[in-house]
């Protein structure tokens, strides 16, 4: 039990570092890509699928807070939305069949879309201003997250199968 928790904690820390490095590289290479690709959400959904909901919640929480600390938005909003994203991705993915690429993509699309909606609602509520969706480009985020997330999971599954 303790070993599992410890392993999950190390994995969560590594995943956070990976997401942050990914976000930094995207920003350095082409800042405009950050509009359509949220590196933190991608890592949270990818790492939470098939794992425990607690792992997803903790990973989402840390990734969200890191995103918040490098943003001038309200500190904690991304933390809250990503906590819920990680928790429910882990919780639901262990109860339904998301093994195939298509099912996985649809599942991640729904989760990412719900996260974006919640983030928008919270921001509107706190800032009392409409969200700037960058001429609709930001609405592509769930699609990009779902596509890349399922692709990563599909490739990971293939690699694991080949090794076995």
């Amino acid at each position, binding site marked *: 039990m303790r070993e599992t928790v410890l392993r999950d904690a190390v994995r969560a820390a590594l995943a956070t*570092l990976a997401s*942050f*490095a990914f*976000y*930094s*590289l995207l*920003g*350095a*290479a082409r*800042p*405009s890509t*950050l*509009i359509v690709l*949220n*590196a*933190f959400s991608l890592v949270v959904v990818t790492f939470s699928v098939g794992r*425990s*909901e*607690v792992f997803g*919640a*903790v990973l989402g*929480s840390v990734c*969200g*807070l*890191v*995103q*918040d*600390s*490098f*943003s*001038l*938005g*309200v*500190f*904690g*909003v*991304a*933390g*809250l939305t990503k*906590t*819920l994203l990680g*928790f429910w991705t882990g*919780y639901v993915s262990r109860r339904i069949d998301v093994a195939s690429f298509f099912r996985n993509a649809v599942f991640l699309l729904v989760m990412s879309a719900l996260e974006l909606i919640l*983030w928008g609602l*919270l921001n509107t509520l*706190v*800032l009392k*201003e409409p969200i*700037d969706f*960058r001429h609709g480009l930001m609405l592509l985020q769930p699609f990009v997250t779902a596509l890349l997330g399922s692709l990563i999971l599909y490739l990971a599954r293939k690699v694991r199968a080949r090794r076995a």
Partner: protein
Amino acid sequence: MALWEKRKSFLILGALVLFHLLLISVQIPLGGEKKLFGRAVFFVFSPVQRTAVSAFRGLRSVWTNYFDLRRVREDNQNLKHELFFLEQEKRALEDRLSQFRAEADVRENLAAFRKSLIPARVIGTDAVNYFRSVIIDRGSLAGVKPDMAVCDRYGNLVGRTITPVSYDEAMVQLITDPESSVSVVSETDKVVGILSGKRDALCTLKYILATVQTGKEGEGLITTGFDRIYPAGLHVGRIMSIKPTATVFKEITVLPYFSYATLDIVAVLPAVSGGTR
């Protein structure tokens, strides 16, 4: 105990949600500095960002320098570096020529200005709130403190440093952030107003009465120095449109001179007591 075993994951989720809600609620009303916890996370993760970006830029630089026109690229880099300082000096020279009579004074002041200038590179952008902030690779070790003006490589105003400032990184609030305020004056008609961001790449000039007849489209804006953060005479942007509104103020949209998309090398200006540059 039985409840914990049964509902462990939901209890942990509840605790995390409560923690985040508390974090959000302590920031209301908005407008204050980042809280200690936020600054701590920034301190811990900013070196990671710096390392990742440096590695990426290093690799990109190796590729371009060694495999693609090596000498030309190096010369270009040096010239860009020199141009960066020359642009800053030129702007400072324009201001100071009107203030100093003796040439010796001008030279002495320019030398001091060049020495105190802190060149930096943009290593991060805001992931969700675009046009509000960027992260630069110079921090307190290089002499960066909060409330220092930041200009692009051509000497146009970009924003100011704000907390958190870590040892090697600092956050810059852009003038396109709706929460920012810069005291500016139009170059020709001398209309004084407050410049703020508009949640996109544009700014708005506030508090210009509808009865004021001066100020026209295309006119440039420079800082006044009245806010005691931004030195006077920095080039900010130009007026794009002036529209009447139902209120007592005009709606004036300003296009900033700096380009968010191509923001790379910036200059952090030493803190001044305001008024002059």
